[in-house]
């Protein structure tokens, strides 16, 4: 049983679905043309990219021509933020975002600030929720863009996108949402939602790494961040990653089907079993993020008195992949900015652990984790100076 392998780090990345790989393989073998070439090889490749554009657009109910393929979710975020900032620089230079965004967002606006832009970072409550009133209050005459993520990668919280987007629309401010974690896992309809731009990535929905997309509502013009040939409607230059894009298309189609046929409900059930099981078995542990308004595959905790990296490595030794927002695990000296933004103190935040399910996660996998995790925590706690103190007091 020690050799069981349970991958619960699907927020970091997912395994490429076999059907996705099958769709990709022709573009890694015989259909190797450059989609920009006029000859047969090029036209075949172009057809593959076109089909993928349709598949991805169907996942979010957009028009295919509103999809710009990029090299990652990060690049999609950068294109949305910087592309808008440069395009609208004569209109204004103020951008609003939240304290729990991905670094792709936050580091982009920090950089923009260095070159003359300004931003407001909205706080979140203990569950990681942005208050739409805060957004409304932050809007200034020179605000050009607000960007609030759809679902958070570290704590799973799903933001009130409809309300946030509506406020932006009322004030004539463009609204971008980073849906890298949410797309393919929760229903997103850009026709119904007041979203102007949406970032997504293939590798978070069983597609390949190295391909993302930005949905851009018709009529919005962006300044490219990668200049060159006229690929992707002139917004993102560079020879297309044909196999990756085709894989993204296939993954999007499969994800759309899962959303329709109710597979996510089973995933959510397993997730809730995991959450409840761990909270029962491991005392002095709290769920991070929102209890119900959360990504269906996402469970995240702070375990008191111990540090995340240790849990991660001992779980790994037990064959279980998890992640942590602790300082050590993230390679930074600070624990996750998301956890701190939710009001957790540093010591608690260092005890963060995230378990994110996938569409192939089984009941047995969850049982295995519920069996293995508590003794690991106990082992680390017995080494902790804080746990000791606690017992004494």
């Amino acid at each position, binding site marked *: 049983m020690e050799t069981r392998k349970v991958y619960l780090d699907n927020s970091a990345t997912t395994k490429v679905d076999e059907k996705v790989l099958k769709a990709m393989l022709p573009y890694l073998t015989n259909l190797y043309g450059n989609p920009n070439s006029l000859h047969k090889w090029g036209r075949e490749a172009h057809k593959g990219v076109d089909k993928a554009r349709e598949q991805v657009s169907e996942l979010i109910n957009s028009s295919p021509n509103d999809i710009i393929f990029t090299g990652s979710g990060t690049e999609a975020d950068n294109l949305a933020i910087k592309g808008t900032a440069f395009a609208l620089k004569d209109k204004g230079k103020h951008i609003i975002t939240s304290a729990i965004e991905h670094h792709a967002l936050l580091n982009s606006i*920090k950089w923009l600030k260095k070159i003359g832009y300004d931003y407001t970072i909205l706080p979140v409550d203990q569950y990681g929720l942005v208050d739409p009133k805060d957004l409304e209050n932050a809007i200034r005459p020179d605000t050009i863009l607000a960007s609030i993520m759809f679902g958070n990668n570290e704590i799973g919280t799903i933001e009130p996108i409809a309300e946030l987007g509506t406020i932006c629309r009322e004030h004539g401010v463009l609204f971008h949402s980073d849906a890298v974690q949410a797309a393919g896992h929760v229903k997103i309809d850009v026709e119904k939602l007041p979203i102007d731009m949406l970032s997504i990535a293939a590798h978070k929905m069983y597609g390949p790494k190295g391909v993302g997309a930005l949905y851009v509502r018709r009529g919005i013009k962006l300044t490219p961040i990668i200049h060159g040939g006229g690929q992707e409607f002139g917004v993102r230059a560079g020879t297309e990653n044909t196999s990756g894009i085709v894989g993204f298309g296939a993954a999007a189609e499969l994800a759309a089907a899962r959303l329709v046929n109710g597979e996510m409900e089973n995933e959510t059930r397993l997730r809730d079993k995991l959450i409840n099981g761990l909270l029962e078995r491991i005392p002095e542990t709290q769920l991070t993020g929102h209890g119900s308004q959360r990504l269906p595959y996402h469970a995240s905790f702070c375990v008191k008195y111990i540090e995340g990296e*240790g849990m991660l490595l001992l779980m790994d030794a037990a064959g279980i992949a998890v992640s942590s927002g*602790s*300082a*050590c695990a993230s390679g*930074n*000296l*600070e624990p996750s900015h998301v956890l701190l933004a939710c009001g957790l103190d540093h010591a608690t935040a260092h005890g963060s652990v995230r378990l994110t399910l996938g569409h192939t996660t089984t009941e047995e996998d969850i049982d295995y984790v519920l069996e293995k995790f508590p003794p690991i925590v106990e082992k680390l706690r017995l*080494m902790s100076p*804080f746990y000791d103190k606690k017992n004494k007091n």
Partner: protein
Amino acid sequence: MYNEKVVDYFMNPRNSGKMENANAIGEVGNPVCGDVMKIYLKVNDDHVIEDIKFETFGCAAAIATSSMVTVMAKGKTLQEALRINNKDVTAELGGLPPQKQHCSLLAQEGIEKAIVDYFARRGEELPEGLLFPSTAVKCGRNCCGDKAKKIEEEPFISDNHRATE
């Protein structure tokens, strides 16, 4: 990332846990930074460390270095124990990743602090000639205190050696 020996000392830590009859305790680090180490000593009248234990809140490197430093210090005189340099600990573990080097400083500091505590508890002055290497040396690691200050200006700039903003 970690070599086998580090993993071993983390997975099967030597000398971990509380010590009931310690006659010296040193606690260093800061929970804000994610690294706290507590060293328990049982020192005999010849100033020999008869027993030593540690408790650590921190990453695998912090636990492994804590464990290693206890192994290295056990049976040594206080004078000898103070000569255990953080580089020795790292070397004994076969090396640590660059961003984890500072953990070994913590281990060294823990021993020092416990030794100071030993004399304090006995109401004795620190013996002349005892050398406290790390307190003499300015803290070389990216202290989380420093970092916390920097955070105010640049909260999200990642640590790297190639990028400039």
